[in-house]
C-alpha cells in the first residue's frame, strides 16, 4: 500500500481533475480517439437533439462506469464484455423509457438514435479501459469527462450545421431575424446532409491539432 492511498485522496485531486479535463481536449473521444463518430453524424443536424443526445450519453456513461466499477472484482473476465453490454443496454432502455414519459417531443425526434447509444464505442471503450480497473469515484469522473468531451463536439457541430443548414439556432430563426435572406443569402442544404458533419468534425480536428502540438504524430 502506498502512502498516497492510506491518507484519503481529496475528491478533486490533480489526478481526478485530469480525468475530467483531459477528455475535453487532449484526449477527446471524438476528435482524438475518433470514437462515437456515427452518432456525431446522425443527430447533429439540429441543436436540440444534439443536446438531448449528449445528456443521455452523459447519464448512461457515468452510471455505467460506476456500476461496472463497483462490480469490477466480481465480473469473470471471460464474460466481461457481455456484462458491460447488459449494463449499457439496460441503462439505455431506461433512458429511452424516461424520455418517452417525460420528454415525449424530444424522444420522438431522437427516436432510433437513443437506442443506438448502446453501440456507441465511447461507452464500451471507457468501461473496458477505465471502469474495469478503477474505483467508482474516479470512474464516475472519467464518465463525466468523456461525455462532456463528446457533448461539446456534438454541440459545436450541431450549432454550425443548424445555423448554416437551417438558418436557425436551437429552433430560433436567427438568419431570418438578421434579415439577410433579403440580400440573396440562402441556407446551405448541404449542411444538413451527413457528409458535412464529417467535414465539420474534420475542421475541429484540424483547429485542435494546429493549436496543440502534442497531438501531431511524429513521422
Amino acid at each position, binding site marked *: 500500500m502506498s502512502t498516497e492511498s492510506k491518507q484519503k485522496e481529496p475528491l478533486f485531486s490533480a489526478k481526478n481533475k485530469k480525468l475530467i479535463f483531459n477528455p475535453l481536449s487532449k484526449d477527446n473521444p471524438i476528435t482524438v480517439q475518433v470514437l462515437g463518430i456515427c452518432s456525431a453524424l446522425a443527430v447533429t*443536424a439540429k441543436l436540440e437533439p444534439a443536446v438531448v443526445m449528449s445528456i443521455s450519453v452523459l447519464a448512461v456513461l457515468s452510471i455505467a462506469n460506476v456500476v461496472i466499477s463497483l462490480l469490477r472484482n466480481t465480473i469473470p473476465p471471460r*464474460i466481461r464484455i457481455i*456484462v458491460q453490454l447488459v449494463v449499457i443496454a439496460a441503462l439505455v432502455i431506461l433512458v429511452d423509457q424516461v424520455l418517452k*414519459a417525460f420528454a*415525449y417531443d424530444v424522444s420522438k425526434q431522437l427516436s432510433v438514435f437513443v437506442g443506438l447509444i448502446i453501440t456507441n464505442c465511447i461507452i464500451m471503450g471507457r468501461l473496458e479501459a477505465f471502469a474495469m480497473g478503477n474505483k467508482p469515484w474516479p470512474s464516475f469522473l472519467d464518465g463525466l469527462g468523456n461525455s462532456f468531451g463528446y457533448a461539446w463536439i456534438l454541440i459545436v457541430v450541431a450549432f454550425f450545421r443548424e445555423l448554416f443548414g437551417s438558418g436557425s439556432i436551437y429552433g430560433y430563426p436567427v438568419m431570418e431575424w438578421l434579415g439577410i435572406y433579403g440580400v440573396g443569402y440562402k441556407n446551405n442544404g448541404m449542411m444538413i446532409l451527413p457528409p458535412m458533419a464529417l467535414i465539420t468534425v474534420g475542421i475541429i480536428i484540424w483547429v485542435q491539432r494546429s493549436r496543440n502540438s502534442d497531438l501531431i504524430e511524429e513521422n
Partner: protein
Amino acid sequence: MFTNRYIFLYSSAMVIVVAAILSSAAQFLKPFQERNVRTEKIMEILKSVKVEVEKSEAEKTYDQFITAEYTINREGDVVSLYKNGNFEKGDIRAFDIDLKTEQKKLADLKAGKSDVEPVFPMFECVKDDQHYYIIPLLGKGLWGPVWGNMALKDDFRTVYGVTFGHKGETPGLGAEIAYAPFQQQFIDKTIFDKDYNFTSIEVVKGGVSALPENKQIHGVDAISGGTITSNGVSEMLHDCLINYVPFMKSKVEESGSPEPEV
C-alpha cells in the same frame, strides 16, 4: 479463479436483476407514456384544424371543437356516429380506432386472406361556424411509420390544414415533414379535380413547378435529402384518403354538387 459454475450463476443472476429493474420501470412509466400518446393524438387532430393548445388543455379543447366522430366503412356508409358525448349510431368511437389494425384488415381482405371489413375514422370539427372533416393518416417512411391528420373543408376537396408525425425519420431530412414549412404547402391544395375524380396530393421530387399547370394544385414540394420519406407521405395520402372517397362523394351529392371553382 472463476469457475464455470460461477459464470453461469453470475450471468443468470445478472439477467434476472436487469429484467426486474426494466419491467418495473416500464410498469411505472407506462401511464405517463400512454397519457403522452393520447394527448399527442388529440393535439395533432386539433392542430390540423389550426387549433393550438397546451397539453393540459387538450382534452377540454377536444370536446369543445370536435363535435362528431364518424366511423365509416368502405362503401361510404356511416357505421357508427359518436356525437357530443353520446352514440347516435353504432358503438365504435372513431377516436379509439387503431388505424394499423384496420389497414391490416384491409390488406388481408384485398389479399383474400380474411373477410373482415375494415372501418375508418373521421372527425368533424366546428370552428367559427365552419365545418371541417379530419382524416387520420398512417403510412411508411424510411425508418418506420409516418402518420398525420388531414383536415378538409366542407366541400371535401380543399385541404384546410395538415399535420404529420413520424417515428424515426432522420432529423433534418425526413423528419422535416413534422414541421410547418412542409405542412403549410398542403393548404388550399385539392384532393379531387374539378369533376370530383380522386387525385390525392402528391409529394413531388424536384418541386411542383415541374408538373403541368393543371396538376400543380394536387402536388407539393418534396424534401431534399428525404426522398423515401416524401414518397412515403405520397403513398400514405393516397392509400388512406381513397378509403373515404365513396363517403365523400355521397356527402357532396347530398349537399348538391357545388359549383366547380374556376
